[in-house]
């Protein structure tokens, strides 16, 4: 045994174990996110069972999705206020998502396994996704369309319900269009008039010019207000017709409730559909998640604005970081005298990659937002003051901060690429009489392009996952508008944006109903992880191809 220890075999196994453990954790983490993330969209069954109260013997019906089941020592359950008979040491408890938050107060509830009856999955149960108050689970009584009563045993019941949902969604879209586009435009024009007026005041315009302008403003205002009223009445009409269709439901506690279709996003009967239908439903939900905006303080609905914000920010960042990073790398590698100073600069630049990102955020907030942004406002947006335009966190500053943060990544990668190009190629070009700049731009840089691409992709991957600095310089939990739209100048650098990473933080930690938000956070995390892994794999693939290429070139 002693000899065995001395040979070192156990220690080799120990190192191997460390690696195996790391691998298990990495894969376990990714699988956890994948399973929970992908699982979020699967329409789960709605269980029905009877809970017996131990004191009164009273029996209540519970209806809901089973979120999870766990084994806990009886003491833990007792601490949580649940009654566990003496003599039982280990109990099972089940977390039901019973929905109906507006009626029950809480949409999640724990029940001990031993108080539960047999589970059944009644086929008539409907799961209704609502715009407010989360999901609703219950039994349909009848459907009311245009005052006509359609019973559940009517064969048209299901189709008509679906039709009502579709109609309501259609109305919803029209309402949104009017609210966002038309009313948004009128209020923006009103604001523009106000700004113009204020600008005239600031410039000190007086006399007939001012009177004429004021008359014009008044005319425009009246016009816009009339337009607004018209839109308003149109909206009211739409709202009214949206509320026309009703669904009458019964809850597990026998109470009845009427839900207007204006509040319904989706109606499913999860216990009564085929696997195929579930798959269709699954992809429908995935689609909705990726293309729709959030609802209910971000805990439901989709994450489209967050994806859009992340991508826009990263694109703007790339536009800024690429030229500067590449030029700086070329300077350091090709032009700067390779001495101690250059070495110090190089090491410092490399080390900046290891400086905490929050430091960049602090710098961005202080220097970009308050100093640069404040001055820009003073110079160009004086009419809008005191409400700041650029003197407040926004897309541009977020991108700029991230550009600074990822600059070292691009520089390091580009320099590596430049260093890898054999000197013979350079010398060949110079020997043929090319100037240094010709050699550089026509020979060296094109050969190093893949390295630059690698650097850029790595920078993008880092930027997409960074959250801490963004919390300071421009990311918000809910942005009313996208940073790019049809309004001149189409890309709005001063707007605040939503971001996938911040969305995870916000929904997971700042939302009032964490339990309800949890699956959505997993799904968001999965989106972000996939995005970043794909980006990184691309970068790795490019780098490997590049290495191969030069290995053969230089031989």
């Amino acid at each position, binding site marked *: 045994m002693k000899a065995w220890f001395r040979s070192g075999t156990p220690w080799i196994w120990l190192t191997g174990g460390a690696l195996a453990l*790391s691998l298990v954790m990495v894969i376990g983490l990714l699988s956890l996110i994948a399973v929970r993330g992908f699982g979020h969209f699967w329409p789960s069954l709605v269980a029905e069972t009877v809970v017996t109260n131990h004191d009164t013997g009273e029996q209540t019906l519970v209806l809901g999705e089973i979120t999870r089941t766990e084994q806990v020592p009886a003491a833990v359950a007792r601490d949580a206020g649940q009654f566990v008979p003496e003599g039982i040491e280990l109990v099972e408890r089940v977390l039901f998502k019973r929905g109906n938050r507006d009626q029950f107060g809480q949409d999640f509830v724990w029940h001990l396994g031993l108080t539960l009856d047999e589970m059944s999955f009644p086929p008539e149960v409907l799961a209704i996704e609502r715009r407010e108050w989360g999901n609703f689970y219950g039994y349909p009584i009848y459907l009311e369309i245009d005052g006509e009563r359609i019973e559940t045993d009517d064969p048209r019941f299901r189709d008509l319900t679906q039709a009502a949902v579709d109609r309501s969604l259609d109305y919803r879209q029209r309402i949104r269009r009017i609210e966002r586009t038309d009313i948004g435009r009128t209020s923006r024009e009103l604001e523009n008039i106000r700004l113009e007026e204020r600008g005239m005041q600031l410039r000190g315009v007086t006399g007939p010019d001012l009177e004429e302008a004021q008359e014009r403003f008044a005319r425009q205002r009246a016009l816009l207000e009339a337009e607004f009223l018209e839109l308003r009445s149109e909206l009211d009409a739409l709202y009214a017709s949206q509320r026309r269709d009703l669904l009458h439901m019964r809850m597990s506690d026998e109470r009845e409730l009427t839900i207007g279709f204006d509040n319904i996003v989706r109606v499913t009967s999860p216990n009564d559909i085929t696997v195929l239908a579930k798959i269709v439903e699954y992809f429908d939900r995935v689609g909705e998640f990726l293309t729709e905006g959030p609802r209910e303080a971000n805990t439901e609905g989709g994450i489209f604005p967050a994806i859009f914000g992340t991508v826009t920010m990263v694109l703007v960042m790339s536009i800024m970081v690429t030229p500067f990073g590449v*030029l*700086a790398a070329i300077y350091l590698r090709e032009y700067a005298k390779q001495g101690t100073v250059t070495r110090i600069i190089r090491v410092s630049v490399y080390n900046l990659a290891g400086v905490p990102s929050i430091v960049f955020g602090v710098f961005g907030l202080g220097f970009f937002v308050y100093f640069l942004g404040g001055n820009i406002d003073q110079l160009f947006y004086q009419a809008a003051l005191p409400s700041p335009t650029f003197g407040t966190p926004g897309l541009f500053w977020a991108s700029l901060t991230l550009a600074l943060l990822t600059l070292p990544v691009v520089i390091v990668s580009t320099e590596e690429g430049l260093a890898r190009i054999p000197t013979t190629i350079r010398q060949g070009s110079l020997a043929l009489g090319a100037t240094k700049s010709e050699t550089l731009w026509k020979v060296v840089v094109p050969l190093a392009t893949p390295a630059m691409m690698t650097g850029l992709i790595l920078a993008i991957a880092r930027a*997409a996952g960074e959250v801490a600095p963004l919390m300071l310089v421009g990311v918000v939990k809910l942005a009313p508008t996208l940073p790019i739209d049809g309004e001149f100048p189409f890309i709005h650098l001063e707007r605040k944006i939503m971001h996938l990473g911040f969305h995870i933080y916000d929904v997971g930690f700042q939302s009032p109903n964490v339990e309800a938000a949890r699956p959505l956070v997993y799904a968001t995390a999965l989106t972000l992880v996939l995005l970043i*892994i794909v980006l990184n794999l691309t970068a790795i693939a490019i780098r490997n191809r590049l290495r191969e290429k030069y290995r053969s070139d230089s031989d």
Partner: protein
Amino acid sequence: MTESLSAQESPSKRPESLLPDSKTRAKRRSRRKLRDRISFWGVSAAGFGVVFSLALIFIYLFYEVIPVFKGATLDEQRRFSLPAIEQNQQVERLWLERYQELGVYYTNDAQVRFFEVDTGAIRSEFELNVPEGVSATSFANGEDIGRFVAYGLSDGQIVSARHAYDLSFPDDRRFIQPKMEFPFGEDPIILDEDGQPIQILGVQASTRGTPRMGVAGYTRDERLVMAVLATQTNMMTGAVTVQANRATLPALPSGTNPTSILIDKNLRSVFVADEQGRVHYFDVSNLNSPRLVQTVSVGSPITAMDFLVGSVSIIIGTESGELSQWFLVRDDQNQYTLEKVREFTAHSAAITSLTPEYTRKGFLVGDASGVVGIHYGTSARTLLQKSVQSEPITGIAVSQINQRVLTLSASNEVAAFELWNRHPQISFRALWNKVWYEGRSSPEYIWQSSSASDEFESKFSLIPLTVGTLKAAFFAMLFAMPLGLLGAIYTAYFLTPKLRGVVKPTIEIMEALPTVILGFLAGLWLAPFMENHLPAVFSILVGMPLIMIGVAALWGYVPKGLRNQIPIGWEAVILIPFILFFGWLCVTLSPFVEIAFFDGSMRQWLTDVGITYDQRNAMVVGVAMGFAVIPTIYSIAEDAVFNVPKHLTQGSLALGATAWQTVVGVVLPTASPGLFSAVMIGFGRAIGETMIVLMATGNSPIVNFNIFEGMRTLSANIAVELPETAVGGTHFRILFLAALVLFIVTFIFNTIAEVVRQRLRLRYSSL
């Protein structure tokens, strides 16, 4: 290219050169040269620009932090003699209003005059209601922010008043109209029922609950009398009646000559200073049985005494120029005693006037030699001592926004100064040493940057945050270092090349995993999981290495045929199922362990034995942040081990050493700088990590290394507090300081690591 080709061909075909003529060539040459220059300058400019902008980060952070350590400045604006003062009048008190336009002074004969500081003209005059045949014998004022004053009269009564300002904006310009208010009635109120003249007076208005006023007076026949007044408004008539609750305080030791009386805002304590340099502390919380609790000696005669804002701390100035801060400290028996908390830089002459700042724990003093001193309580800083006059300063006033100071000399000359005193709260000592804060029983390290109350004493000790940062990084490294380093050694030296090609990128890709995801999993999944499976966590920590070695031992007994089927370098793969099984086993058995050994709940058991347990604690952070750091350490360490020249290891093996002996004897010593730099960079990353600690700890700034409690780190603190601070304020700049500290620390760590790594590269190439 074309040029050189045509140059070669030209000799054979003479007739016409295909070359452009010399003028064009010269033009082209100069154009190429120009392009070359442009490229050079353009690239250099961009390069410099980038380097400069990166340097700017450091410069800017530094620039934002510097003002915090600057002292105060006082620039004289104008000087004039106090308007309308008469020969026989003395100024009792001088004030400056919020907009710094008006000064106000109270004379010893109950006159109030408001004057414009910029012109020296009188704006308004008032006289308090002193009855015929009676004269004012003493004066006192409450807290500055309440602008409350009272005069003691020669018949044992007092009159009280408050000055106030009406703001109006005629022609869009601000106009301030002073006025007098009488919350406790305009008529005199009896303080001493014996009708003796009040020689010394103390007054305080309580703003908590119903408006009350406490007055304490020292009468000519050497008694201390006190009254607490409350008002009642008649619902029908609107008339205000004042109710008084009077008491006589215990007698002072005989021969005592009181000089001033202070009453705290809760009307619970009375402090009497005397000529012998003593302070007598009375507990009057029960006015029916007031007690003389304590008499403390200051040393030399007390010439100035006042509360700091909040009426908790007393600043005492003496005849010999000493300044000290005192407040009531509660001991173990819940008894309060007056303790000297700190001293300030002494003045060279007697302190003749003293005024606290309105919203901070700072104060200004004037001394008998004409020197103004600006001091700050919490940080014990003396921000300025400046001689402004040649004669004693009898009055000093500062505005509410701390930007203007008025001084009054013995010959009634007023001087107005512009004051810059933005960041007195911070000194090196206040940031890094224990500080005795108001209401605490001993000096402590506390980070508590803001509160709802205006009178709040900001507590800016960076120690809790630094300790929190180190604690988080320590536990993260404890978890990540063994896994990262051992895993790296195994990958680089034992693992088969084919597996290595898969394993290394897999772990490295985790480096790019957004930390917000790790933080979210740590906070929402790992923290509750650990709380519910504590025995599993510990048995995995202890048992996992044992299981690995156990499997190694068992492997020796596996039949040789089977053993030879699996090539060397697959140990890790063999271990994976065992690790999974053991982990599953521990989790499954966890509830049974809890039932068997911990009365059913280990978490409860920990609490019962006196260990605080937070759900989001250092253990969770250690695992989550360790997870974030493992790829960093692993990647660098693996490179270092892998690049150890092969001839070294082969030589060692050829000499008969086992593989492990080669690792320990040859590989590790050679690669140790690389491993060191891997650890350094990992540590740097752990120190600066924000999202994980933000989400996986309770963010409570505590000073301990308990693994079951949370912490607040520098970086998380910035993320939490920076969006909500006032731009340019002290708190804002301290957060910049925290960022600067983080920047410098991580930069140093990374630089050391980088230098070590470069050395190593050189060494490898020379081996």
